[in-house]
Each structure stands twice: as C-alpha cells, then as structure tokens.
C-alpha cells in the first residue's frame, strides 16, 4: 500500500508545474464540459501537443509527441492542470475516440491525412453511432451504406450526435452487409458533414440546452476509401475505443469536486445545521470516498496489468447515481431557491445544480442504461445467466 507516486514521477510533476507557471497566461479560461472551438484554444492545444501534455502518445510522424504510454503521467498531468485551474486542452471525440481508432485500424494514408489536424483542433469530428430505433441495442443500427461505383451511398438517421454543427467530419457505424449477422454487418466510415443530402437537426435537452443533434442521411455519397478497417469489421473497430482509459479517475474526481461544491452550498445555506441534510451529506461523503479509493484500486490493477474483474464494471453505474444524488441534496439545501435556473435573478452557481441534476439523470440513461449495466454486472461480474432470448414472445400480441 503506497499512495505516493515515487521520485521519478514527482520530478515529472515539477516539470509540469514549471510549464504551467511559464505558459499559463496563454491558456484560454477553463470551461465546464467539452472544450470549445476557438482560435485561442487551438493555439493552446498546439502548445500542449508540442510539450507532450496533450495527445502525448501519438507518434511524432503523425504530429504528436511520441511519448510512451504511462498512465501515471497522464494522471499527474490531469491533477496538475486541474489544481492550477488551467485548461488541459481540447477534449473532443475526435481526439479521444477517432485518433486511437486510426492508429490501430487506419491505413498509413488515413493516418497522415487525419491525425495531425485532429489533435491540433483544426479538424473537428462528431460521432455517428446511436440511432433512434437502436437505443441501448447499439448493434441493432439500421443506417445503410450501399456500394455504388466508387462510393458508399448512405441512408438513415443518427441521434445523440454532439458537436454535429461544429464538426467537419463524422466517424460513423453503418450497415454495409445487411445479410450478415447483427454484429458482422457493420462498417466504420468517415463522412464529410458538408455532403449533399446530410441534414442536421439540433436536439434540445430537458436542461434547455441543445447539447445533441440528430443527423439525417438521404443518399449521402461517401468515397469507398473512407472506410476504416474492412467491410463488416466496423463493430470491432468502433468498440475498441468506446472505453476511454483517460477518464478512469475522471469520474470519481468529478464526484469529489461536486461533493465539495455541494458542501459549500450546504454551508452557505446553513443546511449543515439541519441534521437531516447534514446526515445526507455524510452518506454521500461516504459513497464518494469509497468511489475515490475504488478508482485508485482500479488504477493499481491497471498499472500492474491485472484485470479488475467485476469490480471494474460498477464505476459508471455508481458514479452517475452518486452525482445525481449530490445535486439533489444541493437543491434541497437551497430550499425554494433550489428550483431557480440559469439566467434567473438570485440563482446560485448559474443554475448548475438543476442542470447537472438533470444531466446526470441523462447520463444514468446514456451510454448503456443503468438497466443494461446491471445486466452486465450480474452476467459478466457475478456469472448469472443471460435473459432467455425470445424475439417472438413478450412482444405485443
């Protein structure tokens, strides 16, 4: 048991601190959520890439820093940037999902064409996986791509596409082999967002913000060379980067930060004098502390090359529920003020608590609902049998 990082890493930490001291004025102000697409942010991203603090393992010949994988260094970078309240650069789906995919499955030409502009924030991507009919059953997607000459012709409808309006390209899963089995008929395509026949409709959320979009394809032509991997290999290609290792500690860090802010709300509202609210705060503190050390345990397993087993499956389920509950407590502590929303007079923290309360509920749903996660925990984690599959029964008669 050792919670220190050791001298080599502490030296690395000092380097980062020096870097931050020297360069912090060049950084744009940090924001919640995905980093915005601004010239200032792109300049900052360039500096980070050049110094190896962003996309550090991307090889030099594709415009990266070419460092070796080192999970602890990645974590220390995150810690120091967070502590200094300096933006850690662009957190886009292009960087977190497409680039690793290209590095593993892309052709040399594709790598040279897309990686560098992506990591430097010049080329923005959006993700086209989910579909309205598929929902939790992602592999049930129906958007079709049929070969016609040198192109695929794409028809269908994607949903939950964030940054669709800002993106120049989409990486998408489409069905190219309708006769194959569900998971074997999918291909991974890169689609230009300027394509004729492609239409974007913003999707307004419960919170009032349009954080997502729907994207419609009506005979959209995509060059055949824009496929990553082979035809029918798309499920494998897309699945490989669904899990972001970078965020392994992110979830529990986020909960810790939220709990701290929530305690501040309670303190300011005098709610710590209300024993009931204080009691709830301590319940949440215990859950948060447990998730914090649970994450450290997962990290240790990772560092030692061990599989965390079933214990690795619960982070998301617990994290979203925990964050949702922290928001609920903050709202309760504010009393009637708890229902105010962004833009109102006297609203606290710019309405953050209500919108996070809703957003976390959305996360409980998004990316594999809580129900599906419980299925996985019981099946993969505890070895319980799968639901019997009976497509015909249980449907409406």
């Amino acid at each position, binding site marked *: 048991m050792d919670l220190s990082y050791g001298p080599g890493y502490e030296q690395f930490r000092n380097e980062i601190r020096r870097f931050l001291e020297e360069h912090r004025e060049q950084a744009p102000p940090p924001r919640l959520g995905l980093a915005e697409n601004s010239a200032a942010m792109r300049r900052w991203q360039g500096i980070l890439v050049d110094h190896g603090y962003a996309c550090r393992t991307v090889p030099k010949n594709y415009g990266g820093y070419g460092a070796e994988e080192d999970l602890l260094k990645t974590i220390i970078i995150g810690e120091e940037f967070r502590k200094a309240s300096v933006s850690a650069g662009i957190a886009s789906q292009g960087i977190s999902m497409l680039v690793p995919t290209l590095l593993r499955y892309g052709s040399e030409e594709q790598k040279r064409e897309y990686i560098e502009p992506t990591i430097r924030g010049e080329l923005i991507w959006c993700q086209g996986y989910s579909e309205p009919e598929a929902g939790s059953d992602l592999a049930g997607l129906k958007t079709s791509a049929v070969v016609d000459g040198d192109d695929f012709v794409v028809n269908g409808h994607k949903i939950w596409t964030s940054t669709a309006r800002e993106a120049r390209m989409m990486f998408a899963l489409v069905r190219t082999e309708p006769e194959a089995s569900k998971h074997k008929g999918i291909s991974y395509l890169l689609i230009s967002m300027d394509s004729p026949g492609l239409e974007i409709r913003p999707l307004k959320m419960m919170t009032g913000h349009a954080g997502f979009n729907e994207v419609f394809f009506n005979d959209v032509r995509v060059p055949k060379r824009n496929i990553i991997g082979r035809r029918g290999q798309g499920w494998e290609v897309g699945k490989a980067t669904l899990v972001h290792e970078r965020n392994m500690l992110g979830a529990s860090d986020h909960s810790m930060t939220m709990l701290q802010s929530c305690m501040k709300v309670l303190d300011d509202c005098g709610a710590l004098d*209300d024993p009931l609210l204080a009691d709830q705060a301590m319940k949440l503190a215990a859950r948060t502390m447990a998730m914090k050390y649970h994450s450290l345990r997962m990290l240790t397993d990772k560092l030692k090359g061990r599989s965390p087993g079933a214990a690795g499956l619960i982070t998301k389920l617990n994290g979203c529920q925990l964050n949702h509950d922290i928001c609920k407590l903050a709202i309760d502590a504010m009393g009637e003020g708890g229902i105010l929303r962004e833009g109102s007079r006297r609203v606290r923290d710019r309405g953050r608590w209500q919108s996070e309360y809703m957003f976390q509920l*959305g996360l*409980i749903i998004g990316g594999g609902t809580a129900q599906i996660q419980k299925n996985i925990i019981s099946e993969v984690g505890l070895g319980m049998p799968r639901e019997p599959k009976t497509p015909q029964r249980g449907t409406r008669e």
Partner: protein
Amino acid sequence: MDFGLSPEQELFAHSLRGYLSQHFPMQRVRTLMEAEHRADPERIEALSGQGLAGILVPTDCGGSGLALLDAVIAAVELGRAATPVSFHSAFVAAPYLLSQALPEPSMRGWLEAIAAGKSLLSFARLPAKASSGKWNGSASFVADAMVADAFVVASGDDSAPEFYLLPAATPGLSVEPLLNIDATRVLGDVSFEAVALPARSRLPIADPAGALRRVLDAGRIVLAADAFGAAERSLESAVEYSLLREQFGRLIGSFQAVKHMCAESYAELEPLRALLWYAAFAWDEELDDASYAATLLKSHCCEVATEVVANAVQVYGGMGFTYDCDVQIWFKRAGYDRQMWGGPSELRARAVEMARAGV
C-alpha cells in the same frame, strides 16, 4: 363509512380531465411555457370557466363554495395536464384568506373578480412587519408576481401574522421575475419600499395565526396533489411508451427490470391518493390531525413523486431526456412542488414537533 369520492366528484375529475386535454393539450402548455412572464387573461378566464378560480370562493360571491377535497381533485388534474397556473396561490391561498375576511365589504368585490377570472391574485409572505404604516422589505418566490393584479400578503412571524391586500399598482411595490425550472408556474420577488398602508388594506381575520397555519396547510396539500398528478401521469406515460418501444427484439415493457421499476413506482404512489383525500378531508373538517396529515403528506408525496418521475425518465431512455418528450415537463413540475412551501426534511422536522406534542 364511505372513504372515497362521491359520484359528483368523480364526474368533476373526469370532465376536468377531458376539458384540459382538449383545451390545454401539451402543445398549448409548451406555448404558454415560452410566454412565461406575460399576462394571459384568456388562460385564467378559461380555467375560471371550469370553476377552478372560484372553487373555494363562497357561493354568494360567485364561487362554487366547494371544499379543499374538491380543490385537491382539481390539483391532481392540473398536475397531470401540467396546466400553467399557480393554483395553490391564486385559487387556494388568496381566496381562502379573503373569504376569512369577508366581514370587510371590499373583499366581496375581489372574491367575485377571482371567481369570474377577472382578477389574478397572489399569496406572498413577507418576514418584515409593517411599522408605523410604512413597509420595507421583500417577499421571495411569490407565485405569479409579474402578472398578479394584487397580492394577499402575510407579514410577520407565524405566531402573530398580519394580512394585507395590496394591488400590484401600489406605490413603492415593485416586482422582479425569477426564472425557475418549471415554466408552467412563474415566480418573482416582490419588493416593498416605504409602502404606505391604508387602513382598509388590512384583512380583518379573527384568528390570524390559525388562518396562516390553515392557508399553509391547504397550499401544501394542493402542491402535494399537483406533484401526485404529475407523477401519476408520467408513470402512465412511461408504461404506454414501454408497450410501444422495442429493444433487443422485445417490448421494453416485457423486461422485468422495467416492469418492476413501474410496479414500485405504482406501489409507492398509489396509497398517497388516499392520504391526499384524507388530508383534505381533515382540513375541511378541521380534525385534530389536519395539520399533521398535511405536513406528512407534502413531505412524503413530493419525495415519492421525485422518484416516480425520475423512473419514468429512465423508462423513456434517451428520449426522456429531450425537451420534446413531455416527461421533462412533469419532472420539473414535481421539482417545483417539492421545493415550494417547505421541502421534505423541513416539513418532517415540523411533524416531529407535532408528534411530540401528541397530535
């Protein structure tokens, strides 16, 4: 022994449900939500036409002179339909207090105007007491503040409140809007700067502490009824959706996880219907445990409603999180009901005191 609604009450609920679904369909609710702080006499007139505005107004003032139990029936329907109206304030609290002050002849005019849908009143609480005829201070989270024609103000602390009726145009009185998550009920702050109080603005109420307790109990019961309606409708709506939506080749409503989530919602929610009835009945009959029942009801009903609407969002999956899906409206509606006029833990702390005092 007859613990349930009368045929007339059931008919009232039924016809109100029909009326609201026809005249205030969700599309119109959404339009009204966008309008938020604009006055909207047509809406109030339409609701008064259904007898909602005058439900507690005495019959000799043009109202229906009904009981709080009837108001609860209406509130459940308004919550189900998410009808934009601050029923607990405009049509329960304000007319109740005015009718307590009926010896004062000017009250009659206001009550008639309320019942006819001609005037919209709002109930406000102001911690500061009027001193030497000039008032300073501010009342927070006042329903309909920007659009109310007049305010019924309870000032001072709970033990010796005073009640006033002040038209919105009273010099020194100003309002500022608040934006809350639930755009079907609008709120604002009301400020008083050296407001002069003519003698006739004071409501002559015999037992002011009792009246304040009664008006708060009534408002809480009605807010609980609203949350109940919102939760019930969102559960029904989620169940309907689960019978249409397929995933993994099956209706999602055939998955035990979805079924049990809905069953648990139902099992938690349904007994509260009877408690709603009882709390209203106890209020109407002024039974000993009326205040205790109202307090327990609001705290528990609003907590259950929070769970039920969140479960409904989960049944809808990603769609439930969109603005276009109606479940978000009930979600926010229940959120408003929970926080207003006392949150769950605050109310339970009050209930403990009542229990210790032997209620």
